[in-house]
């Protein structure tokens, strides 16, 4: 069995409607409801509200813990993780969220590709300054894939993205969307009706290009652009613009059409006739120029013969095809280099008060934060370690044998805090372990300067250190703090792990056990203790709230009482199966 590391998770109050500090005492019966509200770390919903302290924020305005679920993300910058180029959001909208410079990932093994020349490097005097001349290829340093394998070479070593967009695997040029549009128009004119237009076009100097093949093989992008153009044309024809420039009321995508679709099942037949009449005017794409790709038998046969001759190794794997560009690539030779996906830097806001909780520096190369209100700086951290170090090989908890754990609370605040702990006497779940916090109430010192503390020590402040503790007291004592430092306090928790025995005498079983006598489930042997932590401290009166009031000078000295209460879950260990 793998070793178990004790953990502490904090519950963010955002998921709980019956939040302890939001509760309204007038509505509830005092005694019984308290027990009901014991936080159950095993409840299926608990997974969504428990976080390690490091993942949490603290909103200074709401005085509340904020988890990744109750913050709003805002994108500060887009950047390429490979070249660290900051991409303006306008060009992200226009060109998509991939790096449009020369950053590519290997389609075979996702390592970054580098551009290199196929020519031998220049030699002789001053060769460092001599320019490399092409052709250039993309090269993977890890699996030594090269774009030459798929027949792609470049003329220039920079602006690879633009160059790659113009060439197919195998080296044939790709028609750009613009050229395609032109061709489409030309084709429509040839096949079409207006002889005048044809006459208009003839004087234009056009690059002689063979007419587009209606059965040509399209790459996904041009297929998409063809399809889009075709259906846009269809839509425009289906709903001719009125004189005012508005499309007709029954056009596709109009409010009328939407309400008709909504009414399909409720049986409103008012529009049905019109719909049928309209539907006749739409047709589907018929050839490659309109974005239809037919699979021909010869293609399939080609693929089959290729499989037969080159074997399994020439096919692409599922993970390679998962990339957007390579969805249809059956063979390794059809794979294309993948441009790097852009990354973002995000700032986070509190959902309730819109206060910024975290804001990174917008420059890509810096990793500093302008604002960073992390919970780690506001609420005491809790660490767990066993009181008696177990040297034995099994780190498992022995059922029915009391174990003591040290909980160390470390205060990050500059004021001393009062901590109150509350635990249910038995952990929730089928296997109820008994839990006792020996010292449920204590004060943790302020996080002052370590040097100040050292000087104060000289003046003879009484502080119980570990040495003293080991002199006098070997046994943890109820109501007493085990150990205390400058800004930390350790208290002892005693746990009597439950037995994982399923069957047994009826009187030993708790309710849940009676309900479910199935075999041990996954992780049910982990002893998790819900702890309700209440932290109280006196802070300087906040400038934002009370400071704004009238008597400013008077209130400067006023200390404001703060309190924060939240559930934690302590995972102390696995219980041994006997």
């Amino acid at each position: 069995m793998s070793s178990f590391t004790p953990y502490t998770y904090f519950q963010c109050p955002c998921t709980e409607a019956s939040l302890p500090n939001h509760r309204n005492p007038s509505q509830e019966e005092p005694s019984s409801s308290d027990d009901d509200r014991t936080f159950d770390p095993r409840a299926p919903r608990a997974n969504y509200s428990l976080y390690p302290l490091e993942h949490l924020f603290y909103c200074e305005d709401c005085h509340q813990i904020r988890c990744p679920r109750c913050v709003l993300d805002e994108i500060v910058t887009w950047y390429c993780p490979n070249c660290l180029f900051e991409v303006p959001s306008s060009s992200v909208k226009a060109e998509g969220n991939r790096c449009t410079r020369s950053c590519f990932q290997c389609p075979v093994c996702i390592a970054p590709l580098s551009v290199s020349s196929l020519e031998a490097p220049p030699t002789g005097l001053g060769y460092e300054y001599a320019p490399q001349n092409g052709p250039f290829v993309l090269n993977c340093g890890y699996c030594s894939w090269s774009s030459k394998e798929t027949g792609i070479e470049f003329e220039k070593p920079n602006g690879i993205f633009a160059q790659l967009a113009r060439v197919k695997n195998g080296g044939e040029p790709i028609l750009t969307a613009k050229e395609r549009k032109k061709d489409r128009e030309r084709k429509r004119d040839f096949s079409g009706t207006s002889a005048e237009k044809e006459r208009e076009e003839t004087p234009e100097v056009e690059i002689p290009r063979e007419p587009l093949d209606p059965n040509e093989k399209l790459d996904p992008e041009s297929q998409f652009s063809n399809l889009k153009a075709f259906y846009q044309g269809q839509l425009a024809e289906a709903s001719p613009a009125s004189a005012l420039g508005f499309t007709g009321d029954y056009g596709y995508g109009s409010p009328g059409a939407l309400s008709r679709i909504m009414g399909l099942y409720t049986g409103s037949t008012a529009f049905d006739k019109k719909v049928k009449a309209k539907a006749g005017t739409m047709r589907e794409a018929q050839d490659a120029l309109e974005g239809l790709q037919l699979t021909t038998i010869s293609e399939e046969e080609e693929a089959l013969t290729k499989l037969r001759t080159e074997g399994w190794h020439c096919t692409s794997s599922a993970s390679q095809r998962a990339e957007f560009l390579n969805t249809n690539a059956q063979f390794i030779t059809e794979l294309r280099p993948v441009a790097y996906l852009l990354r973002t830097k995000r700032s986070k806001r509190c959902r309730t008060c819109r206060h910024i909780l975290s804001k990174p520096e917008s420059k890509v190369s810096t990793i500093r934060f302008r604002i960073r209100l992390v919970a780690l700086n506001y609420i005491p951290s809790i660490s767990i370690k066993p009181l008696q170090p177990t040297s034995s090989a099994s780190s498992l908890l022995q059922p029915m044998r009391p174990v003591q754990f040290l909980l160390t609370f470390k205060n990050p605040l500059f004021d001393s805090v009062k901590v109150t702990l509350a635990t249910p006497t038995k952990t929730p779940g089928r296997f109820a372990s008994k839990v006792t916090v020996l010292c449920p109430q204590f004060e943790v010192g302020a996080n002052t300067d370590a040097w100040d503390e050292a000087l104060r020590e000289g003046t003879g402040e009484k502080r119980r250190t570990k040495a003293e503790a080991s002199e006098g007291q070997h046994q943890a004592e109820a109501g007493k703090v085990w150990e205390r430092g400058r800004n930390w306090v350790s208290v002892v928790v005693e746990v009597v792990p439950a037995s994982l025995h399923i069957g047994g005498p009826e009187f030993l079983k708790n309710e849940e056990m009676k309900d479910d006598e199935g075999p041990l489930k996954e992780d049910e042997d982990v002893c998790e203790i819900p702890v309700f932590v209440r932290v109280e401290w006196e802070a300087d009166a906040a400038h934002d709230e009370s400071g704004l009031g009238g008597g400013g000078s008077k209130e400067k000295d006023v200390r404001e009482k703060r309190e924060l209460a939240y559930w934690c879950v302590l995972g102390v260990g696995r219980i041994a199966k006997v």
Partner: protein
Amino acid sequence: MSSKRASMMPPAPKPPTSLSSSLVIAEHASLTGTKLITLGSNTVIHPRSKLSSAYAPITIGNSCIISERSQIGIQNEPDEEEADPVVIEDGVIIEVGAVVEGKRIGEGSVIEVNAKVGRGAVLGKHCKIGPLCEVAEGEVLPDYTVLFGNGMRRIDNSGVEDLKMKMVARQVEVLRKLIPSKIAKFQ
């Protein structure tokens, strides 16, 4: 006071060697064993690289680069019959910490950092064994095989072998300037 304690043992006997005069071999390279070690011309042996011919002879071709902490030769005693000699052909790069016990390493191959080539394995020409990859004992890899990642392999058809060989030659030229050669120590 010298901090180094000299060994009381007599130095181990030098293995018989056949060294090319244009070889670059660092003083701190270690050649051990009892069988013949042949090193070709223009080959670079980095300091702290270990060539052990205790169980089988080693032959290294021309223009090879053997990096530091790499181990060439059969490392521990063969079970029954005599182990196959280790032959490394021309233009092979053996990176830092690689262990090579193979029977034949084909021309222009690259054994990357901390990779392993098992005993009796045969690598074709221009193979590349990725970092931390392993070639099993007795395995035969065809020419242009690339081993990478978690046991993935492919055949490289990029056709830039000539260019790579030229680059190896240039790398050797640079290393020749950087590493002082002490052939005499090993002859």
